[in-house]
């Protein structure tokens, strides 16, 4: 199954800010290029985007957890 992986190391956030809703939930439909989370690296924030359209089956990492380069973040189907 295809996955969305992180192009950079950092901290993964599922929400645009702590008091807002998550970008997407498990089971949501996404389109290619849609933002599914943020990656913070040294106070810079980069959007993590869906690499293809489909349904988000599940997130493989928790909100606010550390990511390494190439780590799988979510499973698409």
């Amino acid at each position, binding site marked *: 199954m295809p996955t969305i992986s992180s192009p950079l190391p950092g901290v993964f956030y599922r929400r645009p800010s702590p008091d807002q809703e998550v970008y997407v939930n498990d089971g949501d439909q996404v389109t290619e290029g849609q933002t599914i989370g943020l990656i913070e*690296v040294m106070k810079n924030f980069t959007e993590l985007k869906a690499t293809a359209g489909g349904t988000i089956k599940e997130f493989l990492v928790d909100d606010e957890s550390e990511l390494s380069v190439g780590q799988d973040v979510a499973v698409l189907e």
Partner: protein
Amino acid sequence: MSAAPTRRVLVANRGEIAVRVIRAAHTCGWEAVAVHSDADADSRWVVLADDARRIGPSPARRSYLDIDAVLEAARDSGCTHVHPGYGFLAERPEFARRVTEAGLTYVGPSAEVIESMGDKAAARRTAEQAGVPVVPGSGVVADAAAARAAAADVGFPLLIKAAAGGGGRGIRVVRTDDELDDAVATAQAEASASFGDGSLYLERCIENARHIEVQVVGDTHGNVVHFFERDCSVQRRRQKLLEEAPAPGLAATLRDEITSAAVRLAAEVGYQGAGTVEFLVEGQAFYFIEMNTRIQVEHPITEMVTNTDLVAEQLRVAAGEPLSVTQDDITLSGAAVEFRINAEDPEQDFFPSPGELVRFDSPNGPGVRVDSGFVAGGQIVPYYDSLVAKVVVHGRDRDEALARAEQALTEFTVEGVVTTRDLHLSLIADEAFRAGGVTTTWFEERSTGPR
């Protein structure tokens, strides 16, 4: 002979400034206690300190920004003082207040002074009371209608600023009347989200100015002195890249006016500790913009040209001792430049470059000082800022300082992360920079304009 009670300072920070404070503490005969997150457990400042405490997991919000955890570390390790460094909790009035309420001494001004200078609109009023010129602008504007009325007086282009802002954040440029309503709405939202306070004010946008700031220190005996000025005009997106002291080509009369204005402002608020009063300088006119109520990243160049240990001075003043110098004792000697070596790739729009410092050969030689929180094999982790080291050079004059800078930067070999070293080498070779007196827009125009 009875021994003086041992002073023990908690260093509530990380990286090079933590190392810097520990060194100053030791030279003053104090003990220093380090704090660290999980990511920093094996860090250099932990090794150099007399004692260390873990304050939480790696994200700053759950460690270095956790006031309860920091205070517990201070109490648990028997500290008498708390030094905030810069960044993190350094300009949070709540932190200063909580330190004091815990029966400890905060190394810095009172919570009230931090608060009054942190509110940019209030700081402007204080400056005006002290007879310090401010950028023409408005008081706090409540809504778009008030902003429109104020904009007519201030004139375009103008800046919308968050009253609670700082570090270049929460600022928007508005060039025409049409852009105003939208800009006010977004600035208000941004200010509320970033600072928990949506208050805004307007200021005339002074586009061709130099950023010149004055280092001041006040003690608990009513003395305030200045340690001359720094020129921090080389900036990218309002973040400083390199700084120099003194400001090249600044006329002696203008220097006198700016430094005395800074002292007047600090005296007006009964300032205690080290602080910096920032100005924009356009021709012979200067305007107060804000005051930073902490030690700054670029303090070493002032130390170089005034032969003073400013952090030691902070500690002494916090212990109730008078300043070790009077204004007449403080003289300018030579010129100094500081280069921020960041783990960022200038070729990729300054994208952060975390990783292991596989090689880290730092320079030395006459007039060269390197402040860093790292050694070879250390990790530049993604949780915090990208500062790897500060290369500070001093010479009898600016030419000698820049010659030493070229040698020092060339010697500095870092492998494992991409750094801004080569960018600095190209900046000091640039004719406009060499001539001295570039303005705050110079770097970005240089980067985007014809080469």
